[in-house]
C-alpha cells in the first residue's frame, strides 16, 4: 500500500470509531438525565418549566461532548491536515 492509501484508510477507520465511541457516552448520559427530569416533572408538575429549562441547558452541556467527537470526525474526513504532509 502507498503512504496515501494507509493514511486514508486509517483516517476513515478513525473517523467512524471517533463518532461511535463519542456517541455512546453522551447518549447514555442524556438518557439518564431525561429519565430523572421526567421523574421530577411527574412528582412536581408545577415546577415543569424550571425543570425543562435546566434540562435543556444540561443536555446542551452533555451534548457538546458528542459534538466535539463529531467535529473531530468531520476534520478527519474533510479537512485532514495529515494528507498535506504526504504531498
Amino acid at each position, binding site marked *: 500500500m502507498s503512504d496515501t492509501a494507509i493514511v486514508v484508510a486509517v483516517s476513515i477507520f478513525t473517523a467512524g470509531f471517533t463518532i461511535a465511541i463519542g456517541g455512546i457516552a453522551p447518549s447514555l448520559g442524556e438518557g439518564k438525565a431525561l429519565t430523572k427530569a421526567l421523574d421530577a416533572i411527574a412528582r412536581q408538575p408545577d415546577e415543569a418549566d424550571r425543570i425543562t*429549562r435546566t434540562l*435543556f*441547558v444540561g443536555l*446542551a452541556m452533555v451534548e*457538546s461532548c458528542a*459534538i*466535539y467527537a463529531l*467535529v473531530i470526525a*468531520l476534520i478527519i474526513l474533510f479537512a485532514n491536515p495529515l494528507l498535506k504532509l504526504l504531498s
Partner: protein
Amino acid sequence: MDIDHAFPRVVFQLLGIPIRDTVLVTWGIMVVLTTVSWLGTRRLRDRPGPIQNALEAALELVEGVMRELTPLSPRHFLPLIGTLAIFLVASSSVSVIPGIGAPTRDINTTTALAVVVFFSVHYFGLRFAGPKRYLRSYITPTWLLLPFNVIGELTRTLALAVRLFGNSLSGEVIAAILLMLAGFLIPVPMQIFGLLIGLIQAYVFSILTMVYIVAGLNGSQPVQDAKGGLT
C-alpha cells in the same frame, strides 16, 4: 448534489479578503431584521399594529425567560441576549430555504458570537458587581481554584462556539447526504428536525450567555437608584 455544498464556500474576494456565502447570508439577515424592526417601531402606538405586536411579543418572551435567572432588571441585558436570540433563530430558520445554508455552520460566525459573549461577561461583571467583587469571583471558594476558573472561562467560550457550529453543520451534512441518497421529499423530515435543533441551540446559546453573565455578577443584588426604582 455534492456533500461539499454543505460546507461554507468562498463566493468572492473583497479587497483580498475571501467572503464566504455564510457572511452574505448574515448580511441578508441583518438587513431583513433591521428593516422589520425599523418598520415596526417607526410609529409606536398604544394600540399596536401587527408588526409592533409581534416584535413586542418576541421581546417579552425573551425578557420573561431572563427574569427568572437574574435578580437584576433584565432590561440591562435585553439588548445583548435579545439580539443573540433573534439573530440565531433567524439564522437557523433561514436554512429551510433551498440553496441557502445557515450562517452558523461556519465556525467563524459562531466564534465571533462567542467572543462577543466572552467580553460582555467581563463588561457586565465590572459594571454591575464592581471590580473588587467581580475579581473575587475568580478566587471563590479558595484562591487555589484561580487557574481552573481562568481555564474554565476560556474553555466555555470555545465550547459555546463549537457546540453551535457542530450542531448546525451536522444538520446540513445529514441533509446533503440524504439528498444524495434520495432526491425528493425524503430529506424534508430531516430538515424539520434540523430546524428544531437550530431553535433549541438558539435557546441554549442565549440562556448560557445569560447564565455566564449572572455568574460573573457574583451575586450582586439590585440597588435603589435616584428615582427609587430597582436597577
